[in-house]
């Protein structure tokens, strides 16, 4: 049970550390962490003075790092700190502008992934590098066929897989088609691929992001066994708890630099957090107490099944009232996106109802009609959905509302009015530059988000549904966006907020619903204990239905 808790929660509460050491302690008792077995003095891998630029982005600045043989070495840092770039350089995917890679004290040149593999480095990418229609065996032998015919390699791999399954708890059906496997098993295939190719050092890039608590737990056990058998593991993550739970040493990256190295046992979550974010800006949102009115949205027993018949939204019921913000917390991929799609009319419910102002809008299955009823939608994926990169800002500013008669009578679209409206909204929402004729693609993430938010809020909706409003948005814009959402609430509108940032959910919401595996696990007030919410997010606890 403890194992379940730790991995599930980790996903949600990365930045909060007060109670985490307790959990780390629990893992210790389970034997998840310990001292590196090997006392080898020669480091498995050394990176010396690695420097890499992408155009104007200085992704790695003179990075020096030493990784001990037979240890689990964590590399932690926030998104964009340069962790993935560094590992991609080690794996031969990019080439450093400057610097040297040493393996067991020998300088090596890694020009491509095949060089890295030849040097015993294996990598499990954040997005799996698997061929979906292939079987597990075929995926494993790809690139290590050993001859012009694949028959012998497949036979060898089958034997090897049996052995690895036994040694490391890496069971997978070798004849299963990879695309049909759950992500946890797919990740195992990735590890098997690396081991089959003789990897001595295994790099894992954010491996738990897509895993269920159970799967993450299993992964950590595998990594521990690998380390105990003398393999070296590099774990890239931005989750403090994972670092505390299973690493031996940890390096902290910030803005392309390694800013600190610790032995995991001698550091604390607080120390790591401070090193990771520097002097942390705490986001505080001032807001008055909510005065909720009548119910605007009522979701009743809503279920949505995907093409494979899996219920991604599973019998969900809740309501949102005027003048309140309801937040849905949860680890990403637990059905929140699908729930938003169904409410917005993009997907049609498999069963159940979406009652908006007394009318079942689920049966409409049409975003245009749903909008016409008075519902606005800020989508999770702003690049691919929220706006059209090729369109100028004024055109993105009317996306979804372009049929509005105020933009032109009948079939016409009055360009002057479109531009005038965009200019006014961009100025009000402080979009920079406030130029309606600039291509949407040219705005920064925060400004793109403001364009979308302005578009949806200014339509004066009765209900605004918002997905990940501040993902990849700079601090200044976050504050602005949060204020506008509160303002909307104070004007007596209803807001349904989905975010994987628990901070954000807690600071904005008047009520918090927690989603796990497509279901609502429970409801809490904004003052609820983080740990309690974490347990719900991990799917461990559940309120009586």
């Amino acid at each position: 049970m403890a194992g379940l808790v730790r991995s599930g929660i980790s996903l949600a509460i990365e930045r909060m550390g007060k109670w985490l050491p307790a959990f780390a302690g629990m893992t210790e008792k389970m034997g998840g962490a310990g001292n590196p077995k090997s006392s080898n003095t020669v480091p498995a891998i050394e990176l010396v003075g690695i420097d890499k630029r992408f155009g104007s982005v200085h992704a790695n600045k003179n990075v020096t790092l030493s990784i001990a043989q037979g240890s689990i070495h964590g590399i932690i840092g926030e998104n964009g700190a340069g962790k993935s770039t560094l590992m991609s350089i080690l794996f031969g995917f990019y080439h450093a502008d400057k610097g040297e890679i040493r393996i067991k004290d020998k300088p090596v040149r890694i020009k491509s992934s095949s060089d890295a593999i030849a040097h015993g480095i294996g990598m499990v990418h954040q997005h799996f590098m698997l061929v979906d229609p292939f079987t597990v065996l075929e995926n494993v032998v790809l690139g290590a066929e050993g001859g012009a015919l694949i028959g012998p390699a497949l036979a060898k791999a089958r034997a090897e897989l049996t052995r690895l399954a036994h040694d490391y708890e890496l069971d997978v059906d070798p004849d299963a088609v990879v695309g049909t496997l759950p992500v946890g098993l797919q990740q195992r295939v990735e590890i098997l691929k690396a081991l089959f190719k003789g990897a001595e050092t295994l790099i894992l890039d954010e491996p738990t992001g897509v895993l269920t608590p159970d799967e993450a737990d299993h992964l950590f056990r595998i990594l521990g066994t690998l380390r105990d058998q003398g393999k070296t593991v590099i774990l890239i993550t931005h989750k403090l708890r994972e670092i505390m739970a299973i690493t031996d040493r940890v390096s902290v990256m910030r803005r392309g630099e390694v800013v600190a190295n610790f032995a995991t046992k001698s550091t604390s979550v607080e120390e790591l957090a401070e090193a990771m974010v520097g002097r942390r800006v705490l986001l505080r949102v001032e807001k008055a107490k909510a005065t909720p009115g009548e119910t605007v949205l009522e979701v009743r027993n809503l279920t949505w099944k995907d093409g494979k018949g899996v219920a991604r939204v599973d019998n969900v019921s809740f309501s949102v009232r005027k003048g309140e913000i309801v937040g849905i917390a949860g680890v990403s991929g637990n059905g929140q996106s699908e729930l938003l799609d169904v409410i917005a009319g993009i997907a049609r419910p498999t069963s159940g109802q979406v009652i908006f102002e007394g009318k079942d809008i689920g049966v409409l299955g049409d975003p245009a009609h749903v909008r016409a009823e008075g519902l606005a939608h800020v989508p999770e994926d702003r690049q691919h959905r929220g706006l059209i990169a090729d369109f100028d800002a004024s055109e993105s500013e009317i996306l979804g509302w372009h049929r509005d008669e105020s933009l032109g009578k009948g079939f016409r679209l009055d360009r002057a009015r479109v531009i005038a409206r965009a200019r006014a909204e961009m100025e009000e929402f402080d979009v920079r530059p406030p130029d309606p004729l600039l291509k949407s693609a040219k705005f920064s993430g925060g400004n793109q988000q403001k364009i979308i938010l302005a578009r949806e809020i200014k339509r004066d909706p009765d209900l605004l549904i918002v997905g990940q409003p501040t993902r990849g948005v700079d601090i200044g814009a976050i504050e602005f966006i949060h204020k506008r959402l509160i303002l909307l609430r104070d004007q007596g509108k209803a807001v349904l907020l989905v975010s994987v940032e628990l901070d954000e959910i807690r600071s904005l919401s008047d009520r918090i619903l927690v989603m796990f595996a497509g279901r609502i696990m429970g409801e809490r007030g904004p003052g609820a204990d983080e740990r309690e919410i974490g347990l719900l997010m991990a799917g461990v606890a559940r309120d009586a239905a």
Partner: protein
Amino acid sequence: MTGARGELPAWVDVGLIPLLNLIVALVVAGLVVVIIGENPFEAMWIMLQGAVGSLKGWGYLLYYATNFVFTGLAVAVAFHAGLFNSGGEGQAYVAGAGAATVGLGLEFLPWPIVIPLAIVVAAAIGAFWAWVPGLLQAKRGSHIVITTIMFNYIGISLMQYLINYWFRPVGKMAVESREITGAYIMSFREVARAFFDIRLPSAPLNFTVFLAIAAAAGVWYLLWRTKLGYEIRAVGSNTEAAIYAGIKPDRIIPIAMAISGGLAGLMAVNEVLGVQHRLVLEYVGGAGFVGIAVALLGRSHPVGIVLASMLFGLLYQGGSELSFAKPGINRDMIVVIQGLVILFMGALEYAFRPWLAAIFFKPED
């Protein structure tokens, strides 16, 4: 992101790059001329002389350009919806049956009724011939490039049948309809003589050229000044965002294809009512495919398309003069140039960008 795809000044993107690609295409075409043992500079001079050196040349140039504006706009509208309509050839061809039926069947009516009706019917048939592949793409996911090409072949057989069995008068040897004796669209030459008593050299340029200009303006208005045009472009640029916005690609794709086919169908008006005054076999003569080159060269913008059409008009007219002067150079040389323009404009579009980016962006810092 990558250097090669960085932002360049707008005039480079819409002006310099097409120009460079065009020049490379022409240089390669020149090499072909060298291979067949002719002097490419002489060939070019003959073409220029033949096309723009006389009023008659201009008359032909603009007549060809009229056709290409229609087929080029057709391809461009589909491009904006993210579709590749390679069936302009067939759409323009079958539309001829409509134009001819109206022209031949309503000879007793005055032109202000007949001509608009013929235009509408021709466009409608062209639209239908493109709408079906569009519908199959939207509803069944059928590869639109292949289906539209298949519709070209089906159209060829169908028209052969129709002209042979329906339009050809009994006893007539040539496989074509009888001449339209009622309303038709007057050529510039006739108008000049009838109303201004000016003698112009004989050339097929007729008043359909104004329909082409109107069509170009109409397409511009449609795409950038109407809600439907907005939806077409949204579907073409980002289908997922379009769906989010409540725009149904399933609905927009057949509509965009129908508009595209309708534009291609207007070409039949030029040929049947403006030039031939009868329905003949295979009168489209590749203009549908020229439309692809024209749309690419004109960057799918009506103004660019008009200019690109004139360029191809020049090549066509110059090319016929050339094949007279130099029998060694076949008229199909133009098809080669078309292929080269499509290759360099469409598929190797970015070949020059890294160089240009290097010129326009001095190294940073």
